[in-house]
C-alpha cells in the first residue's frame, strides 16, 4: 500500500493528566486527579481522528456525540463543547471522573489499536469543569405541560430522569431518603475521587431546571407510590439504587472493627467522619486495615482508610487482578499509593480479642476453576491452605442486595427473586405510569449505566404522559 502524501504523525500516547503525587495524596482527602489545562486538553483533543463512522459513541450509555465535542475542544470552543455534552448528559463533571471509560467509549476508539485511545473522560471533565468555573447557563426549557412526575431517589438515574423531564416541561419532585441529594455520588464515592462541591454544583444545575428536591423523605414509609399517584402525580420513576450490604455469614463477623463498605463510606463521605470531631459522626481506624472485595467500593474503602491514618492497608480478593470489577484507574491508584493486594484468598472466620474487637482473620487460598454464569472463572478453595492475617479493622466490600422498602409497600409491583424490580427495556414496570431504572433494576452497576437507564425511562415517561394521560386539572 502506498500513500500519496505523508500523514501527520499521530501521537500514540495519551496526554498525561496531572495528579497529586502518591506519597502526598495518600494522607489527604483532596482530589487525586487534577484535570487538564487548556493546552493539554487541546493536545489530547487533537489526537482524535474524527472518524467518519465513529466507534466510540456506541460505547456511551447516554450516546454523547463524542467526536463533535472533542472537535469543539480542539478548536478552543470550550463553552460549545460543554453544551454539546449536556445535550445528552446532565452530569458531565461527574461522569468524566467516575465512568469506567476503558469499558465504554474508549474501548471502541480506533486509536486504541495502535496506542492509547483518546481520553474521552478527561476531555469531558475538562469541558464541564471549565463551564462550571465560569458559571453554568441554564438551557431553554419547553413550555410547561401541566404534568407532574415523582422521582424516587436523587442518585444518578433519578437526577437524569428529573433533568430530562424538566427540560421537556414537566413538573418534577425528587424524593430523596437521605438528608442530602446525590445518592451514591455523595454517600459512596469519596471526596478524593469526586469532590462533593462538584456534585452540589451539578445538583444545583438540576434544581435550576425547576426540579424540586425533598431530602429526608422515604417513599414507602411516608407516602407510598399508590398514594403519590392519587395525590396528583401522573407518573413515578423509582431510582432507589442498591441497598443493604451483603455479609459473608462467617463466624465473628459482628465483632467490633468490622464495617460494611457501605457503613464505612457513608460515615466518611456523607457524614464527613474524616473531619471528626468538627463533624459529629465518628469512625475508628486501626493500624492494620483489611478490605475484602475487588470492586470500586473496595478500592474507595482501602484508599479512604489509608487517608484516615492506617499504617497498612491490604485488599483481599478471591480472584486475580484481571477479574477485579473496579475501574482500571482506581486499581492503578491503589497500587501507586502503597496498598497491598492479596489475590486468590478469601476469609473463613474472624477472631476477636477480650473486648469483642477484631484482632485477626483466618483466610484460605483460592484457585480459579471453570467460568461461572458471569463469565469469570470461579474461585475454588485450596484445601488445607488456611493462614492467619493480623488485622484490627476489616471492611467488607462484597456487594449489596436490593433495597426492599418500595417493593414491600407497593402492591402489584413485580420483582425478581433477588428483589430487584422487573421492567421492560424502557424502564416500564408492572404498574401503569410507574417506571424504574438503575441499580434497583439491574443490581449493582455503574453511575453511567444508571444514567443511561434514566435517559431511556425519561423518554418513555414523556411519551406516556403526552399520549396516554390527560393533564391533571389543578
Amino acid at each position, binding site marked *: 500500500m502506498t500513500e500519496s502524501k505523508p500523514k501527520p504523525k499521530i501521537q500514540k500516547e495519551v496526554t498525561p493528566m496531572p495528579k497529586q503525587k502518591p506519597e502526598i495524596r495518600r494522607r489527604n482527602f483532596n482530589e487525586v486527579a487534577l484535570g487538564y489545562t487548556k493546552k493539554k486538553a487541546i493536545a489530547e483533543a487533537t489526537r482524535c481522528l474524527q472518524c467518519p463512522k465513529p466507534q466510540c459513541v456506541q460505547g456511551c450509555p447516554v450516546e454523547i456525540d463524542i467526536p463533535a465535542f472533542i472537535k469543539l475542544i480542539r478548536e478552543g470552543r470550550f463553552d460549545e463543547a460543554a453544551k454539546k455534552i449536556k445535550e445528552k448528559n446532565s452530569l458531565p463533571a461527574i461522569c468524566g471522573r467516575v465512568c469506567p471509560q476503558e469499558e465504554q467509549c474508549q474501548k471502541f476508539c480506533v486509536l486504541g489499536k495502535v496506542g492509547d485511545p483518546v481520553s474521552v473522560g478527561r476531555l469531558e471533565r475538562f469541558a464541564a469543569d471549565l463551564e462550571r468555573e465560569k458559571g453554568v447557563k441554564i438551557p431553554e426549557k419547553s413550555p410547561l405541560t401541566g404534568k407532574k412526575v415523582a422521582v424516587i431517589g436523587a442518585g444518578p438515574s433519578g437526577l437524569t430522569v428529573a433533568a430530562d423531564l424538566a427540560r421537556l416541561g414537566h413538573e418534577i419532585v425528587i424524593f430523596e431518603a437521605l438528608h442530602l441529594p446525590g445518592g451514591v455520588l455523595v454517600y459512596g464515592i469519596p471526596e478524593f475521587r469526586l469532590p462533593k462541591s462538584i456534585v452540589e454544583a451539578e445538583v444545583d444545575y438540576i434544581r435550576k431546571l425547576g426540579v424540586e428536591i425533598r431530602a429526608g423523605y422515604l417513599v414507602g414509609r411516608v407516602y407510598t407510590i399508590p398514594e403519590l399517584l392519587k395525590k396528583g402525580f401522573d407518573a413515578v420513576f423509582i431510582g432507589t439504587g442498591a441497598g443493604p450490604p451483603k455479609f459473608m455469614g462467617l463466624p465473628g463477623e459482628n465483632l467490633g472493627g468490622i464495617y*460494611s463498605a457501605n457503613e464505612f463510606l457513608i460515615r466518611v463521605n456523607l*457524614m464527613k467522619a474524616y473531619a471528626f470531631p468538627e463533624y459529629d459522626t465518628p469512625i475508628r481506624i486501626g493500624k492494620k486495615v483489611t478490605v475484602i472485595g475487588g470492586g470500586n467500593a473496595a478500592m474507595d474503602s482501602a484508599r479512604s482508610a489509608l487517608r484516615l491514618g492506617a499504617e497498612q492497608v491490604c485488599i483481599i480478593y478471591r480472584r486475580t487482578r484481571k477479574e477485579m470489577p473496579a475501574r482500571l484507574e482506581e486499581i492503578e491508584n491503589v497500587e501507586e499509593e502503597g496498598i497491598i493486594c492479596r489475590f486468590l484468598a478469601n476469609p473463613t472466620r474472624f477472631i476477636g480479642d477480650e473486648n469483642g474487637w477484631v484482632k485477626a482473620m483466618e483466610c484460605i487460598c483460592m484457585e480459579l476453576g471453570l467460568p461461572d454464569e458471569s463469565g469469570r472463572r470461579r474461585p475454588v478453595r485450596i484445601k488445607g491452605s488456611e493462614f492467619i492475617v493480623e488485622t484490627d479493622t476489616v471492611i467488607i466490600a462484597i456487594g449489596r442486595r436490593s433495597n426492599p422498602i418500595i417493593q414491600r409497600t407497593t402492591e402489584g409491583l413485580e420483582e425478581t427473586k433477588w428483589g430487584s424490580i422487573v421492567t421492560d427495556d424502557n424502564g416500564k414496570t408492572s404498574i401503569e405510569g410507574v417506571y424504574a431504572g438503575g441499580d434497583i433494576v439491574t443490581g449493582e452497576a455503574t453511575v453511567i449505566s444508571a444514567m443511561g437507564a434514566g435517559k431511556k425511562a425519561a423518554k418513555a415517561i414523556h411519551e406516556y404522559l403526552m399520549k396516554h394521560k390527560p393533564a391533571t386539572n389543578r
Partner: protein
Amino acid sequence: MYKIITKRELAPKIQLFDVYAREIAEKARPGQFIILIIDEKGERIPLTIAGYDTKKGTITFVFNEVGKTTKQLGLLKEGDFLKNITGPLGNPSQIENFGKVLCVAGGVMIAPMLLQVKALREAGNIITAVIGARRKDLLYFEEEMNVSCRKLHVVTDDGSRGYKGLSFLEEILEKERFDRCINMGPVVMMKNVCEITKPFGIPTIVTLTPIMVDGMGMCGVCRVTVGGETKFACIDGPEFDGHAVDFEELIKRQRTFLPEERLSSLLWERLGGRGFDRK
C-alpha cells in the same frame, strides 16, 4: 427544616419535644422511630416515636442528655429548627388483642411505651405496666401510665421509690399468667427482663436501639444476632423476640464508639456548648 413546637423537661436531663412534621405525623405508628439531624455538621441519631398528633401535625419524642448531640438538642428552644427528620422508620408494633400484657419500660423509653400501652388498651388488652429509672427523680409519666393500665408498678435501681431492682417481677409472674411481655429500655434492663420471663414461657418482645447511621437498611451497623441469624434492627426490627436476641453481642456493639462519643461530649462541654472547629 423542622420546627420545635413544645419543649418540656420531664425529669432532670430528660426532655420531651413536639416537632412540626405533618407527613410523618400522618403516617407514624407505635414502635416506629425517626432519624434526626440537628445541623450540617451533626450526626444522624435514631429516636423512638413517643406520640403523633395528626391535627397539629406534630410528632413527639423524648431524649436523655447524655452525649454531645443530645446535649446540643437540649439547648434548643421552642421555635428553633432542626435540619432534618426522616421517618417514620422501622416496622410498627404488632397491636392486637393478646389478652393480658405485661409492659416493662425504663428511662427514656417510658414515653414511647405509654404510646404503645394506649394502643394495646384500645385493642382490648388488660395491661400491667412497670416503669423504672435509676433514681426516683428520674421517673416521669407515672400518672399518665397509671390511668392507661390496670396496674402499675414502679421500680428504681437504688430503691428510692417503689421496688428495688427487677427481681419482684418473678413474684408477679408466679402469681399471674401473662400472654405477652413488651419491653423497652436500656439493653441491660431488657436482657434481665428476658431472663426473668423465659422460664415462664411468656413471649417477650424487645425494642432494640443499636447504633444506626442511615436507619433505612443501607449501612448494616445496626446488625444484631437473633436466633443465630444476622438481622438489621432498622428494617427487620426494631422489635424482636427477646428470648432469641444475643444481648452480649449487642452490648459490645453499642460500645463500639464509646471513646469517640466521650471525646465529642467532653469537647462540647469544655467549649461551653459550641461545636469544635479546626480553624
